[in-house]
Every structure is written in C-alpha cells, then in structure tokens.
C-alpha cells in the first residue's frame, strides 16, 4: 500500500507536469516563479509532500479537482458506482464462465473437449481488447450488424436502460478475460483432480459431480479466490479505464484518463490512493476467506 502510493506519487507528482508555468503564462519573473511554487508547495522537501499526501488520503480530504474545481471526493463518489455497475457483471460472468469451462476441460483432460476449449481460449487470448470492442460494436450497435445497442454513452435510470447500456461492454469484458480465466482455472483444477484424495474418492465410488463440485472446487478455492480478489483492483481501474474511454461512460476510468491527459493531480493522487486501498482491502478479505475455506489455516 505504501509502496503503491509511493511509486505513483514519485511518478506523477514529482516528475509529473509542473503547474507553475501553466498558472503564470509566458515570461514569468524569477520572483513570480518562486512565489507560485511556494503556493503549490513545490519547494518543500519530497518526503514532507509525500507525508501530506498520505494524510490527505487517510482523512479523505482529497482537495479540489484542478480542471473544474469540484471536490475530488465528490467526483469519486459520483463515478465509482458507475464503474462498478459497468465492470461487475462482466467480471462475475467472465470468472464463472472461465471456472465452468476450466473445470470441464480439466475433467476431460486430453480428450477432444479439453482440446476444443483450450484452442478456443488461445483464440480468445489472441484477439485484442480493442478489436473485440470494435467488432462487437459493429455486430451489435451499427446498422451493419444487429443494431440493438447504443454505440456509446450511459444514461441509466432503471433496469431496462442499465441492460441497454451495459450489455456490450460486459460482453467485451467477458470475451477478453475468458481465455485467460479458462486457462488459469483449468490449470488449477487439473492439478486438484490429480490429487491423491480425489483418487480416494474414486476408489470409494464417488460420482464425478461429487468429486468435482464438492471436493475439487472446495480445495481449489484458495487459488481461485486469490485470483479473483487480486484482480478486482485491476479490473476496476484498468478495465474501466479502457471500457469507459471507449464507450464514453462517465465512470472512474474516464475521469482517470482525462486526469492523466490533463495533469489533474488531485484526481490522480486520489485514484492511486484508491487503488492502494482496494488492494489492501482485497488482501484483508482474502486472508479472511482463506481461514474460512481452508481448515489448515488457523481459524480466528
């Protein structure tokens, strides 16, 4: 957490764009420069500024956006739910589907079904995110395809309109992640199926369903949960960054993207901080789930 904020702070704030000249216009005097730098706090030592930043994060006193003067906290509160609503369905479906396909492929390991699923997932991994998005748009959103959904935008005011706007981004997210997810889950499941205690189950006449859904699944929960928990921060930030900037959806990703291109530091700092927090929360929940799932880890 400290690391994330530290590196990002270093990168974005210290080496980031210098606002001095922007504020002063052309040909400032030495005096003016020093004044403004002092105002902005640029002249204080690095560690002090970093400390300030951490304090801001902890107290949620995130300051005002440079570009429109809106409080950063308010911007986050407005955009974060949009992003979550946007990526959540795709994230859940992508993982569940990947899990199901991975389980299937692992069970029929070496058979044609396995080969089919794995080939399909390589194909899936080979299609770029952008190509998927554009392709889906052509197929679903333009007169050249089915023309069922909007090309971009987000005017959600109920379940109907939510479905209307979320379908295509969700499909895109599912298609992009499915190949990777399937491969990962297949590897995990194949390893679990090989285990001795699964052989014991077979020796005692357990049905495939009992082996897979009761024992393989429960034993593989630890790596599966880890992957899911740790991909949450990435999907929320990276996934929404791409989806939103493409589909023009006013979520946290778009805000971040705009902030990067316009150098809106308070927002960037907040987003980075948020990522760090998400990460730590994911870590904590993960540890908690571990001890629930695996009796070998001390129960609290």
């Amino acid at each position, binding site marked *: 957490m400290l690391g994330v904020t530290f590196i990002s702070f270093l990168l974005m704030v210290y080496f980031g764009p210098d606002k001095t000249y922007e504020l002063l216009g052309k040909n400032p005097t030495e005096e003016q420069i020093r004044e403004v730098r002092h105002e902005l706090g640029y002249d204080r030592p690095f560690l002090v500024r970093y400390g300030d930043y951490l304090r801001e994060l902890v107290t949620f006193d995130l300051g005002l956006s440079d570009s429109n003067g809106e409080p950063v906290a308010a911007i986050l509160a407005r955009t974060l739910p949009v992003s979550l609503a946007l990526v959540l369905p795709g994230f859940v479906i992508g993982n569940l589907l990947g899990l199901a396909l991975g389980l299937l492929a692992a069970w029929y390991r*070496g*058979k044609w079904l396995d080969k089919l699923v794995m080939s399909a997932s390589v194909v899936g991994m080979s299609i770029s995110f952008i190509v998927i998005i554009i392709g889906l748009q052509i197929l679903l959103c333009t007169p050249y395809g089915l023309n069922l959904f909007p090309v971009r935008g987000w005017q959600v005011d109920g379940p109907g309109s939510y479905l209307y706007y979320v379908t295509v981004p969700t499909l895109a997210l599912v298609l992009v992640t499915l190949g990777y997810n399937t491969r990962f889950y297949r590897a995990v499941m194949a390893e679990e199926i090989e*285990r*001795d*205690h699964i*052989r*014991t*189950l*077979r*020796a*005692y*006449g*357990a*049905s495939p369903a*009992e082996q897979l859904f009761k*024992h393989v699944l*429960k*034993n593989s929960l630890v790596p599966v949960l880890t992957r899911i928990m740790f991909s949450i921060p990435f999907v929320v930030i990276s996934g929404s960054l791409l989806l939103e900037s493409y589909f023009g959806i006013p979520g946290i990703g778009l805000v971040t993207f705009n902030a990067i291109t316009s150098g809106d530091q308070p927002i960037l700092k907040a987003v980075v901080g948020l990522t760090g927090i998400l990460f730590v929360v994911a870590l904590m929940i993960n540890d908690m789930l571990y001890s629930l*799932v*695996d*009796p*070998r880890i001390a129960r609290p």
Partner: protein
Amino acid sequence: MTVPALRVSGLSVWIGSGADSIQVVDGVSFDIDPGEATGLVGESGCGKTMTAMAILGLLPSTGVRVSCDHIEINGRDVSRLNTAQRRKVLGRDIAMIFQQPATALDPVFTMGQQISAVYRRHADGNQRRAHEAMLASLESVGFERPEEIAQAYPHELSGGMRQLSMIAMAMVCKPAVIIADEPTTALDSSTRALILHQLQQLQALHGTAMLFISHDLGVVRQSCRNVMVMYCGRLIEKTDCQNLFSHARHPYSAGLLSCIPQLGATRPGRISSIPGQVPALADLPSGCHFAARCNRSEPRCSESTPVLDAQDKKGVACFRPL
C-alpha cells in the same frame, strides 16, 4: 468349497498404446477367501499397485489398457460393469487403504464428513444413521473418543491416527474385500504394529478378505497367512507365509528372503544379494523374466515361459524350483 471373496483371473495391464505399449501386469490370477489375508510382495515398480488399481478399475481410460478374464467379488463378476454400476461396488463391496494417509484424505473436510459420505453413498442416505455408523466404525478401529476424531481435519491427526481413520472409512460399509497398498510404509514401527493388529482384528471380526500389498516381507509375514511374490508384472510364487520363509521355491523369492537382515525390523530393502538388475519393463526378455539373474537358469528358461497354476493357493513359476 467356499466362494472366494475376491477372484482375479488373467489380469493384464499395458501402458501406452499400439506398438509402444509396455506390459506392466501379465496374466495375474489369484483367489482370496473370506477372512483370508494374502500378501502381494515385490520390489517397487513390479506392478503391485497397478494390479490393485486395475482390480478397482481406477486406472485412467486413456493411455492404459486393461484386460482380464474376470474379477469376481463374492462370486459376482465386476470387471464388465459400466461406470455407474462400478461406482456402487467401490467402497461398498471392495475398499482400498492407501499408502499415504496424509494425502489420500481430503484436507478441507473433517474425518467424520468423509467417512459418513461413504456410508451415505452406499448404505443409507440418512444423515443421523450415517453419523452413527461413522462413529461405530471409528470406534471399531480402536479410537476411544470417536467424536473427537470425527470432528478433526486430517492435518490435526497424527500419521497413525490418520491411517486408522482411513481404515475406519474402508470398513464403514463392511466390504467383502479390502485392498491395503503399503498401509504402514509411511509410519514408524510402533504405529505400524498397531495398524497391523487393528487390520487383523477387523478382518477376523467381519470375515473380510484382504489383499495386502507391500515390498516388506516382514510386514507381510506379520499380517498375512498367504503370500504371492511378483516380479516384472508376473506372479512367480504363491504359497503360505510359513512355507515361504522356511522353504521358498522360486529362486527370486529365495533371493528376496536373503536380503532381509533380520525378520521384523526391515528397511525398504535393496536386493543386494541378487546379481544383476531388474530388466526394463520396456524390453523384457522372453521366457522367464528372471533368467538373466538366475543361477539355476538353463536354456529352456529363456525359450518358454514357466507358468503357475492359476487359481491355486500354492505354486511356483519356475522350471527348476528350489
């Protein structure tokens, strides 16, 4: 004449397919009567475990080929059953005890859950009755407080307790046959004695037949009346334990015996007193597989294969037995 609890005849297993396939079990046949314990001994890699897995039908369907005349449990041929029918047999009529109780038990379920699941699968779906059967089974293997064991996860038990729990799991449906694959190899010697004792008690109590697989002749002698010696996928001598120790007839059996420094206290033995090496399964010599290492061999040993009478309790596959 009694119907044998387990009758295996003409069991062969090949690994791989087509011309590359390697035969790892070759025409194995034997009978085990109810209440009888028969040891299957041989060096590691000789096909003991393969035999057991093939009897249970646990070998993977790809890359392995199994053929047999029949495998009968209490007179019922189970070798031609389809998967669903076979599942009904496994755990109910024939149960297996594995070598490594640490890995053979599911770490995320309690012992009680795992044992009663077997009972509910085969005998009675009722939760409460399954629970009682589970506790009774745990008690019958010698646990004084079965409730505690039932609530424990495998990692919370010692190796010996885990193996006893495994035996309780095998016995919960009172099968006709149990196959124990090196059940004591992973345990220290005092625990080993306890486990062997419990197995014998249970066998006597329920009249269960047991196939006891081990590389350790000493352990087999302690727990079995009869013994079969396996070499390179074939049974080469069948006899009773007393006889084997006093009067081994196959030169390989004799060699095995001479490798045991002291009865009872054996370590996984290196067969140092038998000259030469076990031939690679990929290119076994024709005729008697032991010929190249045998000091009694004669030309016909490599020309034709010595066989042993299929379902007899005694016999030796050798042209010039001792």
